[in-house]
């Protein structure tokens, strides 16, 4: 039975690739990335077993394992989504016992790039144990690694499916997505804080923390190899027991939520109908002071969608959290003084965040889905369309960026830096927007229209977000002239940074609108096809 599920999953994957060389290429890129990072991590996990490795290496399995498990919990929720190739709801009509279904879905979930990468990465632990302690510790470590993988997969399934149960009604779902976005977005900055903190705390405290983590399910399966090498068999047994019990508990939770996930969203709470009053046009615009034209209408609609569409809102909030934390952490690090390095780090962080801000529109058409057909049949000009979308997005982002610059200047205790920071930040925002605009026209991808707000389509989505990464890089590179002006221009550069930065941004956005807009005019049907979910 479980084999049937595995075959089904592979078949669905293969059929998804048929006749789509681009998708295959992107899948291969994803696979290569997993291979690269996985082997790197595997070598890293080998370090604690080396005979004359550094003494801090003993904490690697505990911290690495914890990071992996946390990643599996949080990443699917906000960043990548869950691979719903085999959606539980599809099996609702089949007379399958719950345990059979659970086992099948679990095996299907194990067949994927992330699971492969994780297995590859942690395999270093088993190899290391084998080198250091011989076959028996190697077997123990391998069992730990396999249990760890099982734990990762089950926990990510249980959490997403548990949440989608709690998120039956749209309102609570939106709220929860926002909360999760904040949580996951703060994960990265938190890591920064931890690592910079670790340098000050010293190895001894870290070892103590690693010891505690080793007894929790977060790291237990990954440290058994070291125990086995050192002959602490009681510890091995306890840690493996902790892991197994956790897996069983999570599987139980998953199976509970699975049932309701299959029943679907029938009856989504009471519906209150509020009467619509006032003239339609006046009501449409509300307090927005936009012109009563197609352009104004699109701006207002976009403004509303950035708030009403949970995916868009989640992306805004993710950016807000990352955007606030990243420069703060970078600037409060070691060299927070007024030297050249600190100045470089500061300017660099502004460029990084500015370009990242522009990235929010990289899949702006994907958010709309097939609703975009309305613009196509109405013959909306491409430049107008992109201008309206950019203006609406900036309505939310520009105040955020300004606040961010002020916050940084205050934290560094030097308000005179503010104009320089704003100039660099906005120059990068402009170039980032221009690049993201092109990505949004050339490489839009569909987001599934199903009930799980965290689901994405396998392959295309993840792969095309690599293109967004490329746009981020390109945005940063294009903003370099302004950064160089600030860094090398001395006092003249400092004075010129603000006007030059703003003009640079305006120029970049204008060029982006012209070029991407004209392309959009010729690509409307292709774009619509790209964002139409394949059923």
């Amino acid at each position, binding site marked *: 039975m479980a084999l049937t599920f595995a075959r089904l999953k592979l078949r669905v994957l293969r059929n998804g690739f*048929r*006749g789509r060389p681009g998708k295959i290429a992107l899948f291969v890129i994803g696979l290569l990335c997993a291979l690269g990072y996985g082997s790197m991590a595997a070598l890293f996990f080998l370090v604690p077993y080396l005979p004359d490795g550094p003494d801090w290496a003993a904490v690697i399995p505990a911290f690495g394992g914890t990071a992996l498990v946390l990643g599996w919990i949080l990443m699917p929720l906000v960043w990548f989504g869950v691979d719903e190739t085999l959606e539980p709801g599809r099996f609702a009509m089949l007379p399958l016992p719950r345990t059979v279904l659970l086992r099948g879905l679990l095996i299907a979930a194990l067949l994927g790039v992330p699971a492969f990468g994780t297995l590859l990465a942690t395999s270093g632990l088993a190899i290391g144990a084998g080198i250091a302690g011989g076959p028996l510790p190697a077997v123990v470590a391998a069992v730990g690694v396999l249990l760890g993988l099982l734990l990762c997969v089950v926990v990510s399934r249980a959490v997403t499916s548990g949440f989608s149960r709690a998120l039956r009604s*749209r309102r609570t779902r939106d709220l929860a997505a926002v909360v999760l976005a904040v949580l996951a977005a703060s994960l990265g900055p938190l890591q920064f804080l931890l690592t910079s903190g670790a340098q000050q705390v010293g190895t001894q405290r870290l070892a103590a923390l690693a010891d505690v983590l080793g007894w929790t399910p977060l790291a237990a399966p990954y440290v058994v190899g070291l125990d086995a090498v050192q002959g602490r068999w009681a510890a091995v047994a306890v840690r493996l027991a902790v892991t197994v019990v956790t897996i069983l508990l999570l599987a139980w939770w998953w199976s509970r939520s699975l049932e309701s996930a299959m029943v679907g969203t029938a009856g989504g709470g009471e*519906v209150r*109908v*509020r*009467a*619509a009053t006032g*003239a*339609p*046009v*006046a*009501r*449409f615009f509300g307090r927005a002071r936009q012109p*009563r*034209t*197609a352009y*104004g*209408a*699109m701006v207002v*609609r976009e403004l*509303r*969608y950035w708030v*009403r*569409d949970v995916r868009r809102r989640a992306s805004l909030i993710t950016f807000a959290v990352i955007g606030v934390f990243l420069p703060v952490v970078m600037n409060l690090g070691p060299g927070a003084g007024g030297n050249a390095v600190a100045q470089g780090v500061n300017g660099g962080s502004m460029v990084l965040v500015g370009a990242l801000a522009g990235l929010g529109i990289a899949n702006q058409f994907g958010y*709309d*889905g*097939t*609703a975009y*057909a*309305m*613009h*196509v*049949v*109405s*013959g*909306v000009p491409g430049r107008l369309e992109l201008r309206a979308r950019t203006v609406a997005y900036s309505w939310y982002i520009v105040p955020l960026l300004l606040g961010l610059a002020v916050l940084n200047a205050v934290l560094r205790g030097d308000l005179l830096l503010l104009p320089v920071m704003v100039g660099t930040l906005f120059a990068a925002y402009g170039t980032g927007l221009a690049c993201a605009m092109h990505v949004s026209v050339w490489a839009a991808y569909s987001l599934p*229209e199903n009930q799980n707000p965290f689901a994405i389509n396998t392959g295309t989505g993840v792969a095309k977000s690599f293109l967004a990464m490329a746009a981020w890089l390109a945005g940063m590179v294009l903003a370099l002239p302004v950064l160089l002006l600030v860094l090398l221009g001395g006092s003249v550069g400092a004075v010129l940074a603000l006007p030059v930065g703003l003009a640079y941004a305006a120029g970049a956005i204008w060029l982006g609108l012209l070029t991407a807009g004209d392309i959009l005019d010729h690509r*409307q*049907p*292709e774009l*619509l*096809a790209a964002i139409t979910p394949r059923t």
Partner: protein
Amino acid sequence: MIEDSAFALQGLVKRFDTKVAVDGVDLAVPAGSFFGLLGPNGAGKTTTLSMAVGLLRPDAGRALVLGHDVWQDPVRAKSLIGVMPDGVRLFDRLDGTELLTYQGLLRGMAPDVIDARVTELLDVLALTDAGRTLVIDYSAGMKKKIALACALLHAPRLLVLDEPFEAVDPVSGAAIRDILTRYVAGGGTVIFSSHVLEVVERLCTHVAIMANGRISTVGTLDAVRDGRSLEEAFVAVVGGRTSTGSELSWL
């Protein structure tokens, strides 16, 4: 023939991967006609109509709306047609009034005209009661009606509707039929796809039957029926299997 037709398709072809979905469709829809495009599932009706209104780029062929090529002169052509695509989402996080207003503004209509028409359309289609309910929370029938309202709003000379009667309850169906009949009586042209033969038989002046990506039969309703019922004519053209009475005996 082509010149005085409101809507003309010439040699439209569309391939997906290796499958030919539409294989050279020629069609002339006379001005003022009520034109039904029939065909079994997968015959290529939606693909044809999508190419005809600019939603899907054809591999070959032309689509003319009142003499304007949809793919050469899209702005002019698109301003003349009202489209209701099938299986397409709406901007469903707006409520009904907002959605219609948005469509009107996209079409560049004057605000006072939008105000008057939106109120009247919602009233006629019995959607006023929905108030501020977001379109995403509408029933399937209500979504069809609001989509039809979007197509009608700018008073186009030609309406292209994909499956307008699917998932619509009898009361709403009657309302839609009534609106379309009056629209044609006022000089408009309607082409719609359907597989509800009964509705087609009741409404249409002209009929075309599609099968396997080609137009098999086309003409006035009476010419296509040729003395039979439309269902008989349809099955004869499409070629369904006839029951021998012995299969599925275990049921």
